[in-house]
């Protein structure tokens, strides 16, 4: 059997020989790969992404299906539990390692990467930070291997940015809690389009005060827990399954309560920080790919007897895209390199990187379609998918408006002097 990695189609190969000096030459330490393990991780994920994720991206986008076998390969590579302790089946790495995986996967298939995020960050990392030893022993190894696919339920049909306005309740009943409500926009909410996904961290109201929310682990098959609907016809992120999940008198034992009763708000805020930095990294990967495609096309496509890269309008689009991408990337990695996963209170920059990178990727993707012209408008050239996928990052994991709110509120709390 010929080594398929060495037979990648020409269109996906890197035609550039120059590598950004800020990023270091290949394999060297830099802001973006601060240790040898990060270097090795990035090379491995990039190689895997180019050989195995790229070829299936277009088709899964078209059919709106989740590639479960490929997802499980991420488990084999030790990527699903990237921030989970080795004791529980993970790889025990840091925020930057998570960001590297996100960026490299998003450069070829942001939708597949989104499902990876929901599982590894929103479920596994949250559980790793906030769960008890018993809960981690029960769920982490299976999630790290990819045997179970997990997600997190926060948003509702009536509560998105106003997350603490959630209406889902968990009422105590003896040794149990009874959960009622609906959750919306749940990535990995379904894996086959028919049943729910395997395990979820579910936020529900358990007290009178606005911030009295608690977090529970709900499993597929629990009576009353069902798939409301698979959300179809999404603009982008189509290969990632999104669902509405319904809770009708779902009884969970108190052993499924994660952390303190009425104490989940801090868990939520803490995990939102790494989630937002990871989403910003997705924007970075999307932008990187768009710039590579623009640069490649501008040297090969000819008009009026010369490569279109000789024309100022194209030069402007490529140069501005590169500078914006590098500025955003530097902000993201500086933030992730200083992000302690067990800490909270990094709102300014976790919200800030996503706010900045989200718009950056959208702009860069738009320029990429423009540079590629008619070809950019077709699926085969990939940039139209990246353009559609990029838009989500201004909404999912926090709308732009939520970042505005959080960041200015933080100024109010912490004072107005900047470092």
């Amino acid at each position, binding site marked *: *059997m*010929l*080594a*398929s*990695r*060495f037979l*990648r189609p020409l269109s996906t*190969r*890197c*035609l550039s*020989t*120059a*590598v950004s*000096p800020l990023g270091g*030459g*290949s*394999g*060297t330490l830099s802001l973006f790969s601060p240790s*040898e*393990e990060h*270097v*090795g*991780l990035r*090379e*491995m994920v990039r*190689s*895997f992404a180019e050989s195995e994720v790229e070829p299936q991206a277009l088709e899964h986008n078209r059919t709106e299906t989740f590639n479960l076998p490929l997802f499980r390969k991420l488990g*084999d*590579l*030790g*990527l699903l539990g*990237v921030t989970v302790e*080795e004791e529980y089946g993970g*790889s*025990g*790495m840091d925020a930057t*390692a998570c960001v590297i995986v996100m960026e490299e996967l998003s450069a070829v298939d942001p939708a597949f990467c989104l499902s990876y995020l929901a599982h590894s960050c929103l479920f596994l990392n949250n559980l790793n930070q906030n769960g008890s030893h018993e809960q981690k022993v029960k769920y982490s190894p299976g999630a790290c291997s990819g045997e179970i696919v997990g997600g997190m339920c926060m948003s509702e049909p009536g509560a998105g940015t106003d997350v603490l306005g959630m209406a889902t309740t968990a009422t105590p009943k003896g040794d149990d809690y009874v959960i009622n409500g609906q959750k919306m926009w749940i990535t990995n909410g379904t894996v086959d389009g028919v049943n729910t996904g395997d395990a979820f961290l579910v936020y529900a109201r358990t007290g009178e005060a606005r911030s009295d929310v608690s977090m529970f682990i709900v499993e597929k098959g629990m009576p009353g827990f069902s798939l409301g609907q698979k959300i179809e016809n999404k603009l982008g992120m189509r290969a990632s399954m999104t669902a509405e999940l319904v809770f009708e008198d779902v009884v969970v034992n108190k052993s499924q309560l994660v952390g303190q009763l009425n104490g989940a708000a801090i868990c939520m805020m803490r995990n939102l920080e790494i989630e937002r930095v990871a989403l910003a990294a997705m924007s970075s990967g999307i932008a990187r790919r768009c710039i590579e495609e623009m640069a490649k096309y501008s040297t090969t496509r000819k008009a009026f007897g010369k490569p279109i890269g000789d024309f100022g309008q194209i030069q402007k689009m490529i140069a501005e895209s590169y500078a914006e991408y590098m500025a955003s990337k530097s902000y993201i990695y500086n933030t992730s390199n200083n992000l302690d996963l067990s800490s909270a209170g990094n709102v300014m920059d976790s919200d800030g990187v996503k706010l900045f990178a989200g718009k950056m990727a959208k702009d860069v993707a738009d320029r990429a379609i423009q540079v590629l012209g008619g070809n950019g408008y077709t699926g085969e050239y990939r940039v139209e998918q990246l353009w559609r996928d990029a838009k989500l990052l201004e909404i999912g994991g926090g709308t732009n408006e939520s970042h505005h709110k959080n960041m200015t509120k933080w100024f109010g709390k912490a004072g107005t002097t900047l470092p």
Partner: protein
Amino acid sequence: MRVLVGVKRVVDYAVKVRVAADKKAVDLANVKMSMNPFCEIAVEEAVRLKEAKKATEIIAVSIGPKAAAETIRTALAMGCDRGIHLTTDARTDQELGPNSVAKLLAKVVEEESPDAIILGKQSIDGDFGCTGAMLAEHLKIPQCTFAAAIDFDAKTVERETDTGTEVVSFPSLPAVFTADLRLNEPRYATLPNIMKAKKKKIDTKAADSLGVELNEGNTVLEVFEPPPREAGIFVDDVDGLVDKLKNEAGVL
């Protein structure tokens, strides 16, 4: 059985190389470098032997600049146990020739006494395809080149030829094997193994401290891109074709 594997740091196979302005070499500035694909296949074969409990130790050796240590780390992350790095500032794509490499590897073999030496069949920068055979000659041991399958129990190797494959047998170990494309499909290093690789040992020595003459007396005169392929022509009939082939192309 202990196995020695050679790994070379080369220009990544997907990069479109450019000739340097002085036409003396390929321009390597800021170019992405990776492990030679055939070396990856060699490492994979060795790691599979260890997993099948046929090998007890795998040593990865590389001859190259300081950055070649990264290539050894990749080999360690794939499953090799330790590394040997012979450092040199000579360009490994053209200054350091296959005979010099073979002599250096022979020194390593004399020191380490492996039972099997597995190399890639050729490097994708030099493309000589000679190192394995030269190494076997220096050591006076059997060589099985262009291996598509190696059976250490039956002592046979299926090797690739221009007309298909043939099966040869080797009398004994130690022996040199060179890996061809179909020998196996190399694995991705898993993240846990990438992390473990950091703790594995790499011994570093200068290549010119081994008492081997490294200058082979070859000078590269010029490096140039092949001329662009020109358009073909139509001929009217077979006679016209034969005429062109004989009188213009000079191949008949």
